[in-house]
């Protein structure tokens, strides 16, 4: 039975592309990239970003998609086939996908909670709760109504990671709903998720477009956009910017999770993987840029509104002091008034003890991550006319952005488990439900009072360094362990013929980047990341109820231990897998030589001097032993009839 026939397939190319785009385009495109763009030199940041996209992002994605499409296996099966010493690489990807999926769904639960709260006017985070009729709750007064709603009413956050705070029932409810939705979408594997991505991958663009039109027509939008794109070209000489760009592009493309490999393993063999890579990468970056424009248009509006509120407060002070009627000073005449009465703008502020209001200062308070979405942007929506509608749209967008990224995470667990046969006894539906159930139980950690702090720990230690390590080994595996020339030979059997300039250019591009440039860049990013992690003290921001603000606390010992364990779980398998294989070889000798891969013909290199590289090869004509790709051969081929090309011969090849 040819395995190729049984493996699920995408209904059409669009499903595959939308799934990959949906996986790559996630919450980071909306709440991480705009902040990075603005704080790292504005428009000038686009230069290192695009360069890193070309030399790091595109080659990495190309490797993942081709490996999956060629070997028709998820991350575990694929890397075992490339080289048995790499069996640990797939396991690492599996664990990373599993751990990240657990906390990622918490963010979806938060989005759901905010979404459910958006169906009312006025929005609940618009005003502080009132105590005693005359004053607001201290915590809310010291911070702001949006911050209060986020920290107190949604998260019910505790004052440190050690204080648990108990499981929050409202978040438990939305968490259950979130996992139910994920399970339902994946219940039939890509047959079901492939249909869902038609909506989840395209809906964010619809919302972004609506926000774009709304955003650029708001007052103060141009201020925000000018602030965002203001190029600070002098910053480009700082190597930090370049490293930030490579880090950003790496994490933006959802690489090393094994999800991309899984998705492309369901592709037909002759799918144009080079163009697919380019489409996904370009779409991802364009989406990031579009989201930045939207975010900063709205942030510029918010900064302007905050500035006007600040100035109006100052005006009240001035009117009280000078006993002038209301509206004799307006926001527009504020500056001239100060200059007239006090000689200078700052003189007036100093003499009357006014607040120093500035739009730029408001924009400088850059926020990224959950703070941007749930506090700053939610606050900005309050000022827009028709805020409930915009809130609903925004949180629905975040929901769909997160959902299709979750599909990639769970598929990164599902496909390898299925490929190694661990789950073949069970119905696929039950496997999905099982994985979701286990993830749900562990993710209960993140909906207790201290959940947000735990989420940051997981994000830092499962969602970053292990990914860099895995990606580096992926490149080394393809470029040096398997050798890029062999890899290219395999690919040329099913890639489009290199008969035009575009294809030829790509050919040389892959040659330059995959074995050489990209690993070097990735190594640089990795070293920088390690260095950055070492010099950053192990502290976190803890929200204090009495202060209405964050204070910096150190992680207690057991949390540090847990974070080390998390990083180890995600990375230890690489050396461990190699050691296990070494031990097996040592004890079992030459009979565990590598089995031929699909499409590889059983000719010894010594006989013919080169591989058969014709891509018009009809696989069905070859003897079954070499085409099944099934590592469980139906018979043991005699050693002298089909000489195995085992790893010992690599160095002897021409």
């Amino acid at each position, binding site marked *: *039975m040819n*395995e190729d*026939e*049984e*493996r*699920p397939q995408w209904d059409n190319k669009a499903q595959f592309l939308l799934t990959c785009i949906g996986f790559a385009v996630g919450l980071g495109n909306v709440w991480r990239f705009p902040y990075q763009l603005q704080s790292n030199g504005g428009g000038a940041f686009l230069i290192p970003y695009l360069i890193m996209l070309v030399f790091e992002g595109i080659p990495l994605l190309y490797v993942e998609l081709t490996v999956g499409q060629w070997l028709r*296996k998820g991350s575990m*099966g694929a890397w*075992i086939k490339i080289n*048995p010493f790499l*069996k640990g690489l797939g396991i690492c990807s599996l664990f990373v996908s599993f751990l990240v999926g657990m906390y990622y769904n918490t963010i979806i639960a938060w989005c*759901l*909670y905010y*979404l*459910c*709260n958006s*169906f*009312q006017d006025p929005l*609940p985070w618009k*005003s502080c*709760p*009132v105590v005693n*009729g*005359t*004053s*607001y709750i201290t915590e809310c007064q010291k911070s702001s109504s949006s911050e209060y709603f986020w920290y107190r009413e949604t998260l019910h956050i505790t004052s440190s990671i050690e204080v648990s705070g108990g499981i929050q029932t*409202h978040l438990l409810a*939305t968490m259950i*709903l979130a996992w*139910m*939705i994920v399970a*339902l979408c994946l*219940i*039939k*594997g890509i047959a*079901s998720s492939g249909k869902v991505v038609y909506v989840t991958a395209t809906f964010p663009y619809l919302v972004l477009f609506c926000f774009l039109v709304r955003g650029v027509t708001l007052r103060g939008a141009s201020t925000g956009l000018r602030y965002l794109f203001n190029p600070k070209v002098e910053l480009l000489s700082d190597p930090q910017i370049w490293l930030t760009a490579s880090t950003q592009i790496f994490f933006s493309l959802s690489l090393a999770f094994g999800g991309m490999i899984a998705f492309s393993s369901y592709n037909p063999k002759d799918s144009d993987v080079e163009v697919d890579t380019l489409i996904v990468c370009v779409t991802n970056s364009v989406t990031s840029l579009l989201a930045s424009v939207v975010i900063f248009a709205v942030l510029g509006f918010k900064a302007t509104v905050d500035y006007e509120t600040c100035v109006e407060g100052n005006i009240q002070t001035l*009117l*009280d*002091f*000078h*006993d*002038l*009627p*209301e*509206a*004799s000073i307006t926001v527009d005449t504020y500056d001239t008034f100060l200059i007239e009465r006090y000689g200078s703008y700052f003189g007036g502020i100093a003499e009357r003890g006014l607040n120093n209001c500035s739009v730029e200062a408001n924009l400088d308070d850059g926020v990224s991550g959950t703070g941007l979405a749930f506090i700053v942007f939610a606050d900005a929506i309050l000022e827009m006319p028709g805020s409930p509608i915009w809130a609903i749209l925004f949180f629905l967008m975040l929901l769909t952005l997160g959902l299709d990224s979750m599909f990639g995470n769970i598929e990164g667990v599902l496909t390898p488990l*299925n*490929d*190694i*046969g*661990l*789950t*073949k006894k*069970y*119905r*696929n*539906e039950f496997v999905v439900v099982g994985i979701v159930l286990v993830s749900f139980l562990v993710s209960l950690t993140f909906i207790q009072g201290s959940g947000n702090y735990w989420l940051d720990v997981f994000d830092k230690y499962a969602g970053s360094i292990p990914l860099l390590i895995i990606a580096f080994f992926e490149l080394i595996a393809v470029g040096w362990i398997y050798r890029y020339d062999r890899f290219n030979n395999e690919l040329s059997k099913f890639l489009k013929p290199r008969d035009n300039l575009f294809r030829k250019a790509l050919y040389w591009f892959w040659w330059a980047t995959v074995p050489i440039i990209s690993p070097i860049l990735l190594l640089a990013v990795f070293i920088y990341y390690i260095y950055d992690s070492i010099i950053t003290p192990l502290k976190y921001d803890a929200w204090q109820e009495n202060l209405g603000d964050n204070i910096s606390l150190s992680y207690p010992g057991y949390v540090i231990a847990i974070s080390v364990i998390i990083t180890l779980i995600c990375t230890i398998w690489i050396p461990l897998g190699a050691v296990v294989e070494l031990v097996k070889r040592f004890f079992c000798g030459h009979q565990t030589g590598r089995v031929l891969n699909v499409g590889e013909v059983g000719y010894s290199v010594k006989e013919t001097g080169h591989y058969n590289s014709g891509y018009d090869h009809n696989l069905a004509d070859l003897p079954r032993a070499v085409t099944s790709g*099934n*590592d*469980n051969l139906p018979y043991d081929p005699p050693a002298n009839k089909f000489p195995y090309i085992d790893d010992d011969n690599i160095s002897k090849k021409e």
Partner: protein
Amino acid sequence: MKMKIFLILSLFIAGGSSLTCDPASNEVKVTVKLADPSEFDDYDQYLFKGLVAYSLQKYCGTTTCSPSSLEETDTVNVHISNKTDRFAMCVAVDDCSIDTLTKAIKQSKPQFNGALELSDTVLLVDGILPTLKPQTIPDFPTWLIPFIVFICLTVIAAIAIIAYTVHQTKKRKKRMLSSSSGDDDDEGSDHIYENSGAATQL
């Protein structure tokens, strides 16, 4: 009267600072934030005096005030002075302490706002914090309504998928029973990944 002259003198000395009312003469500062100060004309001031008298009579009628004569306060007992362009003024009542006056006005503030067609943010009385509108706490948390809708939709989708799968299985079984040789490969087996790779490679 002596107090008033004293006040005017002190204002002169203070120079261009904002209006401060003399606490010694039991004066309370009242600010009415208007764009056109002439809107709060003499008639409105008379109405204000009447409201102050009303509030004192009401307050002292229910709780005892120190000079019991305050129960009989009338508009002639209310004095408005030091009107500025803001519009701000100093209000004093004969034999009434600042504390009693403030409490009385606070009790009847809604009537003040309504009669003068102002609000808590426009009519400010020194010493009275504006009453904030309390959040209306609904009996049923509002967010639960869309949440229940979503849960129901999800459950319906789950039932639909299960029903479809069961239906497909029945159809397949029927077909396998009717055809002589059950071709396993045809509709796809229960497990999508039949005969997938060996577990031994681990």
